[in-house]
């Protein structure tokens, strides 16, 4: 997919996840909207995956360490054909496999996550295994910024650098908000880039809602052989829906009928604008 197709796809995924959360009356709306561009770049361009062979040995691995923002992931996996799109209607309903966190009973999900601070260590294990076996696959681990307060993140960060895992890419969805408010007020993280660099990672700081920047950075990995990569994806929580952007309670706010209609209208408009821009470019 080219970059403009990716941008259009990200808008569609945002609309899908808003409808899904609205239908289910539950979900982590803000974080899913903030990471949608990251996941779109990974799943539709960067990662070597095949929905027909979810356990293909050479596939790239994705670990959603911030497991609570699973809504964008469910919508993308359904869109890619890992499971039928109609199943999205069962999200969070009684007995569903599409629960509120990644669930490896669903094709395309590697590990059950949701308890914060677990994903990077698991990713280190996967990347280490690839190195020892001389396999080419990469491991991508998406973390939240609030999650960075978990000490286990830093245990894994140390190990990733110690073992020179340049096939490992950590991504921090740096939207600067967590459930109680600003990350810097809850437990200060800055300078977060410098912390990762001090732990031996090659840090690339970028606009995590900008597909062009994301694709350019991810295509360069590993920029420094022998070093794991950390993408500091500076994002906006609630991105794409003006009245949800940077509003803490949208962390798990469920849009009302009216809010949904308004959000979908905004996103439809954004898609139209994108088309016009593309037309002008051509």
């Amino acid at each position: 997919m080219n970059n403009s197709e990716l941008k259009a796809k990200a808008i569609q995924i945002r609309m899908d996840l808003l409808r899904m959360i609205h239908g289910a009356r539950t979900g982590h709306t803000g974080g899913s909207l903030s990471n949608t561009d990251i996941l779109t770049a990974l799943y539709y361009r960067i990662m070597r995956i095949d929905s027909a062979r979810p356990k293909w040995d050479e596939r790239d691995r994705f670990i959603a360490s911030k497991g609570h923002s699973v809504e964008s992931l469910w919508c993308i996996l359904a869109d890619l054909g890992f499971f039928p799109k109609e199943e999205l209607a069962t999200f969070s309903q009684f007995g569903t496999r599409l629960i509120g966190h990644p669930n490896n009973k669903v094709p395309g999900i590697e590990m059950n996550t949701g308890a914060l601070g677990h994903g990077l260590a698991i990713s280190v294990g996967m990347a280490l295994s690839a190195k020892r076996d001389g396999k080419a696959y990469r491991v991508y681990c998406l973390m939240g910024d609030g999650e960075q307060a978990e000490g286990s993140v830093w245990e894994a960060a140390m190990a990733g650098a110690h073992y020179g895992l340049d096939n490992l890419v950590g991504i921090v969805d740096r939207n600067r908000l967590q459930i109680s408010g600003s990350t810097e007020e809850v437990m200060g993280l800055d300078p977060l880039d410098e912390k990762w660099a001090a732990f031996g990672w090659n840090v690339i700081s970028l606009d995590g809602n900008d597909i062009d920047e994301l694709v350019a950075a991810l295509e360069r990995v590993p920029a420094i052989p022998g070093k794991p990569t950390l993408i500091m994806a500076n994002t906006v929580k609630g991105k794409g829906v003006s009245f949800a952007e940077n509003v803490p309670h949208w962390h798990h706010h469920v849009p009302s009928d009216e809010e949904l209609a308004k959000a979908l209208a905004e996103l439809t408009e954004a898609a139209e604008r994108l088309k016009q821009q593309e037309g002008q470019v051509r």
Partner: protein
Amino acid sequence: MMNKIPNRQVICETLAELARDDRDIMVLASDSRGSAAMAPFAKEFPDQFVEVGIAEQNIVGISAGLAHSGKKPFVTSPACFLSMRSIEQIKVDVAYSGTNVKLVGISGGVSYGALGMSHHSVQDIAVARAIPGLAVVLPADRHETKRMTEALVKHEGGVYVRIGRNPVEDSYGSDEECEFVLGQAVTMRDGADLTIIAAGETVRVALDAHEALKEAGVSCRVINMHTIKPLDEEAVLRAAGETGHIITVEEHSIHGGLGAAVAEVVVQHKPVPMRIVGIPDEPAIAGKTSEVFEHYGISANNLKRLALELLGK
């Protein structure tokens, strides 16, 4: 003659033997290769060994990632830390995600006798037992440890193993005499009047109690419940039905361990008089394993006394 080979050394030797032909076997240590007796393995198989430093959460997460990629990781880390510090990783990354990780808690129970409660692991069975899908195993001696290790390499799924630090006196005569099947209790001695159910290092104590009781004219069955989960319920119910009295003995808190597991079955399906012997609900007293055992009545003499009391003799 007293055995001088600790179970941890047996695990290392057995894994090393198998690792020559099975490149997927991996051993992980948290600055614990010395205390786990894994230094020879680390030296011989550097590509199959991973050091994580003093980071018990990390060791379990990394192992889960390795297992997901087809490896057969054996985590070797002190039981006190492995079963507590990393219990959430065990619950989520191993049990819930269904990864094939073997967690070997070394220096378990009161092995670190004089180091205090921070280093004792006498709640680990209770904690591990509560995790769905996680098997819990305590091998009795070096022979059973060898057989268990061989079986666990073939077994697919998460297992928590607890072993002690020091050599244990043999319960079996040889490796050949010992057969290990996960989840299948071993009747070490048959008997008709009562049954003592033991696991790990207390199997030897139970066998000694059997001899002491024989002298007193009591026929005592001894069951080695090496797998505490999944529990061999049939063996428990047979013991309850055929011998009418049960004593459990364990190097663990009296809450939530072997005794509790047995009682859960007995009380629901075949209530018979029972006694649970173990460490009381307190920070365990300092001392060598034998001294601590003696202090809390984890001894052949005390088991004999309790048995006679239970039988009204």
